[in-house]
């Protein structure tokens, strides 16, 4: 249903813009503990960059290969989030109480800092994958589906 755009201006701007948007998404994700933003917004911005690539170059374009591969990682973000919680359990603490992450030579506050960072990465992966997945679901082609069947 979504085809590649035929305008040179749009294609060139897309090539310029997509890496910048991805860089900004990573910036928002990893500086969420110091500036506004965090896992949710960073994930959405990263998803937006991949949506731009789908809308400009089409779902089968070479720039969209990241989006095509990322869709298979559904549930990975949730696994990271719950995995951090279980790590806390293994360390002898409570579920999602990051002070229980067992890393020697790290004080409690730094452990909680690390836990916040890891769970933020989990949320970002979950949100980005879900955004891409919904875009692929919405642009799933009826005619294409009939010709394949």
């Amino acid at each position, binding site marked *: 249903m979504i085809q590649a755009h035929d305008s040179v201006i749009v294609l060139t701007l897309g090539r310029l813009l997509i890496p910048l948007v991805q860089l900004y998404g990573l910036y928002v994700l990893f500086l969420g503990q110091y500036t506004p933003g965090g896992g949710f917004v960073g994930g959405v911005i990263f998803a937006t960059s991949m949506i731009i690539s789908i809308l400009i170059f089409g779902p089968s374009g070479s720039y969209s290969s990241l989006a095509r591969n990322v869709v298979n990682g559904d549930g990975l973000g949730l696994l990271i989030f719950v995995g951090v919680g279980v790590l806390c359990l293994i360390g002898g603490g409570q579920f999602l109480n990051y002070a229980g992450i067992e890393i020697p030579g790290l004080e409690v506050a730094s452990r909680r800092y690390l836990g916040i960072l890891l769970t933020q990465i989990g949320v970002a992966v979950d949100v980005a994958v879900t955004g891409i997945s919904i875009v692929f679901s919405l642009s799933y082609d009826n005619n294409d589906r009939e010709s394949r*069947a």
Partner: protein
Amino acid sequence: MTFSFEIPLLILLILTAAGSILVKDLVPAVFILGTYSFFLALLWAWLGAVDVAFVEAVVGAGLATVFFLLTLFGTAPKDTRIRRPPPPWAALVGLPMLGFLLLYAANDLPKFGDPTSPASVHVSPFYLENSLKDTHTPNVVTSVLMDYRSFDTLIETVVIFTAGIACALLLRRKQE
């Protein structure tokens, strides 16, 4: 002299909200809804809730608009045009009364930024005082979301995951 942006922002917010409902075609309505989200983001930023403004601008004005447009592209033109019957008289009488009741109740809310309001004396002083010491995280919003209230965030993540799974199950169906 400082000029207050409160009133113009609220007027623009109401105008765009009304416009997205009153417009006859769904594609312009989606774009007006995007501008509504943008003005709402400006309002959040003006109130000092920068994180909420960020999310509103990115999700409301960016992602939701793309989702709506992709949905509309999958429909026929006759589906996106709306024909509205005139509203029943009960709605014309009842809704203004409800609005009046809400305005009357809003008088009893604590003033904006009131230090003795229940919201600012219950748990938020604890978070503000201990966040940097406990978690080495200067952004208190992040430390509340991800550490003190991480269970809520976990369930929200599950909700988002479920939404993606439900969309895939409903729309990516192979016809036998």
